[in-house]
């Protein structure tokens, strides 16, 4: 554990001095998890890779300002999430309030019987953007509704209602998947 922390410190140092090997090592260490984060915000893989790329360029540019207050992974993840939100905003996909009214949960009867991360990813990705963003931020990233409201420029109550709708849709889908198992 201690050793790991040390090497992470070394990595950070290396990245601050723009050492290519350190940068690559840092990328290798976190890119898989960070791509998974990006893929929860945009379901299109190419777009997610764009975000990953932009995000890591930001990470390397700003790593000097990383203070060892939280985990490095958490810090990188925040940058990824913010980059993803920027991207959604830029593409005007972050229209939270009135959107998605007529949305119907996709049929997920074909999901495998044991729901693993992959299946859950698919469920999350099948949510419309507005729901999905709030659900990701709240349930998976662990932001509060207040923070989400500030982040997305919506009311706290909107965040709550979006979340509960996302949740009920996911629940329906999970139940459907469950039923299809019998």
């Amino acid at each position: 554990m201690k050793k790991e922390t040390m090497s992470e410190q070394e990595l950070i140092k290396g990245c601050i001095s723009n050492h290519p090997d350190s940068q690559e090592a840092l990328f290798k260490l976190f890119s898989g998890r960070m791509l998974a984060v990006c893929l929860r915000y945009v379901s299109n893989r190419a777009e997610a890779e764009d975000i990953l790329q932009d995000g890591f360029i930001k990470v390397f540019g700003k790593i000097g300002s990383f203070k060892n207050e939280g985990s490095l992974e958490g810090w990188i993840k925040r940058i990824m999430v913010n980059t993803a939100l920027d991207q959604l905003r830029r593409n005007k996909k972050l229209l939270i309030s009135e959107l998605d009214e007529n949305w119907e949960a996709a049929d997920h009867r074909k999901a495998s019987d044991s729901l693993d991360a992959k299946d859950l990813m698919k469920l999350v990705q099948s949510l419309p953007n507005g729901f999905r963003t709030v659900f990701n931020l709240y349930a998976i990233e662990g932001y509060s509704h207040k923070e989400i409201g500030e982040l997305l420029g919506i009311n706290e109550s909107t965040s709550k209602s979006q979340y509960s709708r996302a949740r009920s849709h996911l629940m329906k889908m999970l139940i459907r998947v469950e039923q299809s198992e019998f």
Partner: protein
Amino acid sequence: MKNVTEKDEIAELFHEKLSGHQESVNPAVWKGIQTGLQAQSAGTLSGASTALKTSGLVKSVLIGGLVVGGGLLTTWIVINEGADRPAMQSESTISTPTPLHEGSTTVSEAVSNTPLPTSEKIEYQNFAREQSFAKSEAAPAFEATTETGSIANNEGSTLPGESKQLTPEAARPAVANTPPSTINAAEKANPADEKAPAQASKDKGKTQDTDSQFLTKTIPNIFTPNGDGLNDLFTIPLASGMRHQTKIFDKSGALVAEFDHQIEGWNGLGQAGIEASEGTYFYVTFVSDGAKTSKQYKGTISLKR
């Protein structure tokens, strides 16, 4: 799978399973990052060889596809709607028959005087293919142009795998029939015709024409309009006696800005004087000596602040 009806359990389930989830990453992403970092730290952008965001761009051209490319195409068609002259040569490109004139005639007018939908289509396809090619090589240069003749000369060259990929994704049947990469053909035809910076030869980004006639170096693919005095403008490195007219489009094909040789470069502000957001934009540049020689350059420019 029981008790999923409890509120917290949904969040817990997804949090537990997904917060540490990993996906396998396309190696092209790392290459793109390296390029971006090199371009930033070098301070000089002309040396940056790889267009940023290759992977995503290619795929968004292919997959999201017509939103991007189609948007660009649409823009061109819109430009052309003002013209009443009929098409003159179906095989020529925009740039060739439309030299810039002294004084009043701007390039955009020149464009609108040349309504050649067929060639535009080809241009778009070439553009898309350039991107595909770039992806497969991971060392693209987008300033390659489509010159008259190069399209016709293409017949023999191949672009493994990529045209196949284009067809279903782009849902544009003509793509499959068009001859493959201009760049490839040009590269093969004129390997020694290279006078641009050393990087460029690696990039396969050249055509039959000597670029040094028009440009002193490769058009940059990234700039950082953050006021730090470094690379704050997107500039076209014109050779002496040349002029240019450049349009910047966003990914949806909307015109973001246009500028010419009378100003130093694009400062990253959009039409309403609002800062354009970070990301990748397309540029189309007409470089001309004001008489009969002109050339079109296209590519992507990444805006970072």
